[in-house]
């Protein structure tokens, strides 16, 4: 029997769409596996981005193709196959559970210990809840308050449309597209992130937290954040969540750029508890982040405070480039590695302007079979006369199977600068534990107390609400490591 014309047409239509399937079919929830130029275009088109941004992404992608996966850190992991990753999936494709009963009981136990209310637990665990009303009303009053001051705080995908000039001017100015392998990757395929702009002379009246971003439902795989503080302004930004976040995506390569003008101050705090994997480290998240602050203005100040307790591998160096004379850079960090976790983290303080000052306080805690490395660079250029750096890196070892390593790089090119470096390594002594036990505290309470005492100098830099949660979190992440 001869096929009807209708059938012939239908077949033609179908075969054509198979050839260019993913381009024409923008209704797709996920881009196909892998990374190539078409995927980059797909992402950009999905977000309805202007052409200049697409070009920027493509430039980054082409640069990435010429680069090799870096292997110099003290972390061990199987080579990542980038063709086996989905680089775009629309929000709402996250599998929704029906109730907390379906959630991993271990996860629930942690939420309880952290004192998280049930409604929030549901949200974090991915239970389908009707919380839209709550978050909209909260976010609305919040946004109104900020708008009154002229402060912009929105997802970067929105900023690209409403404030393109600002984004164009600053994106990639602190971390250029070719800076490193993962920054290049992020620049090509970043999904979303925060955009913050504080106008001249404005002190942001509240802590900005990622919790309030309406789009914050999908944990960004390749988050991109840009914060700009104009002359004489101040902002404190909180990133992260103490509750353990699972994600089907294993690789998280975010990029955070901060810019501070004359007399401006940006305080950036992170509490990170990505899923660390099982006792052998399987299934955990790789947290490969590039964070950098540009102290452009005179007497500008950027402080990074981080408490990292999760992830199978943490690889990050939040840094400051101190260009403006008398600018200040600070880095306060607590990095906990337990079981099979690995951490290679630290900071870079690059002194360019005169009389610039940097402070580095790093506390590393290792337990189980974990490996914890502090890697820091203090670079004092010839132009940075009168500059000062103080570095203190302390390691605490729990048990005899873990490791702590310190790799400091100090390059000083002017004799008038002063650099101080102190490092200590200690164990939780049996005497200290026994003293606490004899006062009625159990082993876990005692360990938590002693460890938090060890981290005190860093914890006091965290905004209060974060500090209380972070303390509990450190205790929980070290459970089972002593006794």
């Amino acid at each position: 029997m001869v096929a009807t014309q209708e059938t012939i047409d239908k077949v033609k239509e179908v075969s054509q769409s198979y050839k260019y399937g993913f381009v024409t079919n923008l209704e797709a929830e996920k881009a196909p596996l892998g990374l190539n130029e078409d995927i980059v275009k797909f992402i950009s088109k999905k977000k309805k981005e202007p052409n200049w941004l697409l070009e920027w992404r493509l430039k980054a992608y082409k640069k990435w193709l010429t680069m090799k996966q870096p292997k110099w850190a003290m972390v061990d992991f199987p080579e990542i196959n980038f063709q086996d990753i989905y680089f775009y999936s629309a929000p709402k494709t996250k599998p929704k559970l029906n109730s907390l009963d379906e959630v991993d009981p271990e996860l629930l136990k942690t939420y309880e210990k952290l004192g998280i209310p049930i409604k929030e637990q549901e949200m974090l665990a991915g239970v389908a809840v009707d919380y839209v009303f709550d978050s909209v009303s909260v976010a609305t009053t919040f946004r109104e308050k900020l708008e009154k001051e002229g402060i912009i705080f929105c997802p970067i995908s929105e900023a690209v449309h409403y404030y393109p000039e600002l984004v164009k001017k600053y994106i990639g100015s602190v971390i250029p597209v070719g800076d490193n392998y993962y920054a290049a990757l992020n620049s090509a395929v970043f999904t979303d992130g925060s955009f913050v702009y504080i106008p001249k002379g404005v002190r942001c009246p509240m802590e900005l937290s990622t919790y309030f971003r309406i789009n914050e439902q999908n944990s960004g795989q390749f988050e991109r954040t840009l914060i700009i503080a104009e002359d004489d302004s101040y902002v404190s930004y909180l990133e992260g969540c103490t509750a353990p976040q699972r994600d089907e995506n294993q690789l998280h390569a975010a990029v955070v750029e901060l810019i501070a003008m004359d007399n401006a101050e940006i305080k950036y705090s992170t509490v990170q508890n990505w899923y660390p994997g099982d006792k052998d480290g399987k299934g955990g998240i790789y947290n490969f982040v590039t964070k950098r602050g540009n102290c452009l203005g005179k007497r500008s100040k950027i402080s990074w405070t981080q408490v990292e307790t999760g992830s199978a591998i943490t690889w990050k160096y939040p840094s400051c480039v101190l260009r403006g004379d008398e600018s200040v850079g600070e880095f306060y960090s607590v990095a906990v590695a337990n079981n099979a976790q690995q951490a290679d983290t630290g900071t870079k303080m690059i002194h360019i302007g005169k009389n610039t000052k940097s402070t580095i306080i790093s506390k590393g805690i290792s337990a189980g079979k974990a490996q914890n490395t502090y890697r820091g660079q203090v670079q004092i250029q010839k132009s940075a006369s009168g500059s000062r750096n103080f570095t203190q890196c302390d390691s605490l070892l729990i048990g005899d199977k873990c490791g702590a390593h310190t790799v400091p790089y100090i390059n000083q090119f002017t004799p008038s600068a002063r650099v101080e470096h102190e490092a200590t390594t200690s164990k939780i002594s049996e005497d200290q534990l026994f003293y606490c036990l004899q006062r009625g505290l159990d082993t876990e309470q005692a360990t938590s107390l002693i460890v938090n005492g060890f981290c005190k100098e860093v914890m006091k830099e965290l905004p209060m609400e974060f500090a209380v949660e972070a303390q509990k979190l450190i205790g929980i992440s070290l459970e089972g490591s002593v006794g």
Partner: protein
Amino acid sequence: MSLLEIKNAHLKLDNKEILKGVSLSVNKGEVHAIMGPNGSGKSTLSYMLAGREGYELETGEILLEGNPLNEMSADERARSGLFLAFQYPVELPGVGGMSFLREAVNSRRKFLGEEEFDHLGFVKEARKEASKMFVKDEMLKRAVNVGFSGGEKKRFEILQMAMLKPKVSILDETDSGLDVDALKIVSEGVNAQRNKENAIVVITHYQRLLDYIVPDFVHILSDGAIIKSGGPELALEVEKNGYAGLINAA
């Protein structure tokens, strides 16, 4: 039933027998002094009672209000009302004195089914007791024992005792390193705790402390066993004739 009972305690450390059959009965309202030369096993005895790891009994029993202590962990014993004032209190860097005290007191209260203190309520209570021990507010803000002088450390130990209100307190050479003034303050603090329901065991080398904390009973510990027991006058005998005299006579 005695408050604290030690029945024929034998303990080895590094395969060497240190406690060779110590027996002691302490009743409510009593203060016992244990004196002995260096190496007699005094500290071992206190660590054994407190439940320190590595100081488990070979044979023998220890009972607190009739309950076997052997089976309880160090922290369980503490929550049940056993307190040890350390001879050399260890430093806890970064751990604030006030928070430490509060956690300790609350774990005891929780065990007893009493209401735990919140931060403000506790601060009030702590300040009250602290002033009695001449412990200033400022000292409570510092990290536990960090940079404390010998006297300050011992005063802080007795402050902890006052706040925890234990059933049985063991004071391990509380007088070591103290000048007369500090000794007086510490002793007053201890004496203020004495009541009909609790008991105190004072471990010391020297008779001097016992002038201030007058014991009901004195025991001489030598080479891992109690060789002589008596009233407070026994301490004066030690002062006069030394331990050697008593040991030879025994």
